[in-house]
């Protein structure tokens, strides 16, 4: 069942509103600008595409367009932070933190200048633009950097909350968002914190549903696919837990450990390379503190290609059908 304690959208499976995380980010950034006059925004020639035009049109004097120059984008942001601004920099994830990784490392992380980095169009769901624009490496690139948190909202509302939370967070934050619309899973009342992840789906023990022993950690665009899979599996009397692992760094270690102890296996799902991604982060933590069987779903040392988001998720085995199949495979292995 959907976790009844966190006010998830009751219409998730019937008639969910469709909205992208980039839309949520754009709305959140505008609110952040209204609340805090030190918030400034910088973009590299993709302003409307990543919805920063809402901020630009409202606060033109606090918006800096650097052109197609992502290395400069983050260096300038570091300089702005050093004179008391709270810079929010946005681009496509392939270019930031892709093209400008060393500048992020030196001028923001090592230099400890607080900057909020937003990487949009992450994952396969960018679709028709093809592999060159589908960032599948950005979690790995960012989570290895000291003084940088990594957050992946699962829907537009979480994206809105993520940017607002990041403004008040003590370190720099990387927020990974998507281009494609996806169902709004949460509500305004659903809790969202950097460093906390949430159980979205779990067995209904009162109804006699017995946990099948598999906990799924999933993030971003694929959270909805995992929920669909969990729902359909429950109709086949397979009861899994689904955790929206929105906080990749810091990990919600307490939550992960709790569910690992109750589980026989963990399944991680992400729209990212398996190597170095969210699953790796969970695996690093559990290997050290509570070793158990972990299976990974993600991209296997490969690039994407053009296609519709739905077609790509199917081809790269990241849709609900692939998730159901994987859960059944794991069940065979643990029983």
């Amino acid at each position, binding site marked *: 069942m959907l976790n009844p304690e966190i006010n998830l959208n009751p219409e998730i499976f019937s008639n969910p509103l469709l909205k992208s995380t980039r839309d949520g980010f754009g709305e959140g950034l505008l609110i952040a600008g209204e609340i805090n006059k030190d918030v400034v925004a910088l973009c590299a020639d993709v302003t409307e595409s990543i919805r920063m035009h809402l901020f630009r049109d409202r606060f033109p004097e606090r918006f800096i367009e650097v052109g197609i120059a992502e*290395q400069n984008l*983050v260096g300038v942001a570091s300089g*702005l932070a050093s004179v*008391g*601004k709270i810079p929010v920099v946005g681009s496509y994830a392939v270019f930031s933190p892709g093209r400008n990784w060393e500048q992020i490392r030196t001028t923001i992380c090592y230099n400890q200048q607080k900057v909020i980095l937003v990487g949009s169009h992450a994952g396969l769901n960018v679709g028709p633009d093809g592999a060159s624009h589908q960032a599948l490496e950005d979690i790995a690139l960012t989570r290895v950097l000291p003084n940088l948190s990594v957050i992946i909202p699962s829907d537009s509302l979480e994206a809105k909350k993520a940017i607002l939370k990041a403004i008040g967070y003590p370190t720099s934050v990387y927020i990974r968002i998507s281009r494609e619309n996806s169902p709004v899973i949460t509500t305004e009342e659903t809790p969202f914190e950097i460093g906390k992840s949430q159980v979205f789906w779990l067995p209904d023990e009162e109804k006699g549903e017995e946990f099948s022993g598999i906990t799924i950690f999933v993030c971003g665009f694929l959270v909805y696919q995992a929920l669909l899979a969990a729902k359909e599996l429950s109709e086949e009397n397979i009861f899994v837990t689904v955790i929206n692992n929105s906080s990749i760094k810091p990990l919600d270690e307490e939550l992960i450990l709790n569910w690992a102890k109750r589980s026989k296996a963990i399944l991680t799902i992400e729209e990212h390379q398996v190597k170095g991604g969210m699953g790796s982060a969970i695996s690093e933590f559990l290997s050290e503190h509570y070793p158990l069987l972990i299976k990974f779903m993600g991209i296997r040392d490969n690039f994407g290609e053009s296609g519709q988001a739905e077609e790509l998720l199917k081809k790269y085995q990241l849709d609900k059908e692939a998730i159901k199949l994987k859960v059944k495979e794991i069940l065979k292995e643990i029983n």
Partner: protein
Amino acid sequence: MKKKQKNSIFKNDLLALEKICWEIRQDIIEMLLEAGSGHCAGPLGAVEIYVALYFSGILKYDPKRPFWPERDRVVISNGHCAPLIYAILARAGFFKKDELKTLRKLGSRLQGHPHRLSLPGIETSSGPVGEGLSQAVGMAIGLKMNNMKNQVYCLMGDGEQDCGNTWEAVMLASKYQLDNLTAILDRNSIQIDGFTEKVMPLEPLKEKYEAFNWKVLEVDGHNLEEIIKALYKARSLFVKPVLIICHTIPGKGVDFMEWDFKWHGRIPSSKEAEEALRQLRSLKGKIELE
């Protein structure tokens, strides 16, 4: 007493500054010898630039209050000039000169390349070249947003003119007409792999910056009077960011180091250091005789 004209630099002042230059050069050789690694030619060649900036009275800073909001910002883009920067900051009073001998050692505040959080007086951590101008541009934009009059200085090497990042920042500086930004380029014509014009030809550098809508001033980078005049001029120019190209001799002051790119990333042996110090001291002596 008649108040000094801003632009008039008296001969006595210049002599005092020249004396500082030769002392700083000796500090650099002594520090590198003690550290056992580091860069030699660049720091020796850029001494007059830093002395002019820090000790001519143009730069607003207070070593007792390194985070004083009214201070001018100095961004050092070529962090391998670290020994020079440290010698200057010690002389300016940010820390005691004794600490210079800890350069590059475990636990030292004097990191191999400058780190903002370890030493007062350092505005940004630097080392990877080509990034300083971006940060300086960010500071200049932010200070303008805050209606603050502080000047931002960015000290650059010529090797980092190879970097695309540098030119991204050059363009943004002219887009925002950052007249509160002065970039100072140490044109010593060497980089690790050889002479800049062989590794990656930069000329015509002045014309390139002018084409990007900067105002460019060119000076002899060992002539304190010329550098100081250019710094004042840069501060008084409006609408455009200013680049001061300082033509310098790498390894300046030690004859066997001058113009030899091998000394970019090398340090002297103890015998070479002894000879270097002998040359530097005698030059200093010459100045004192005048």
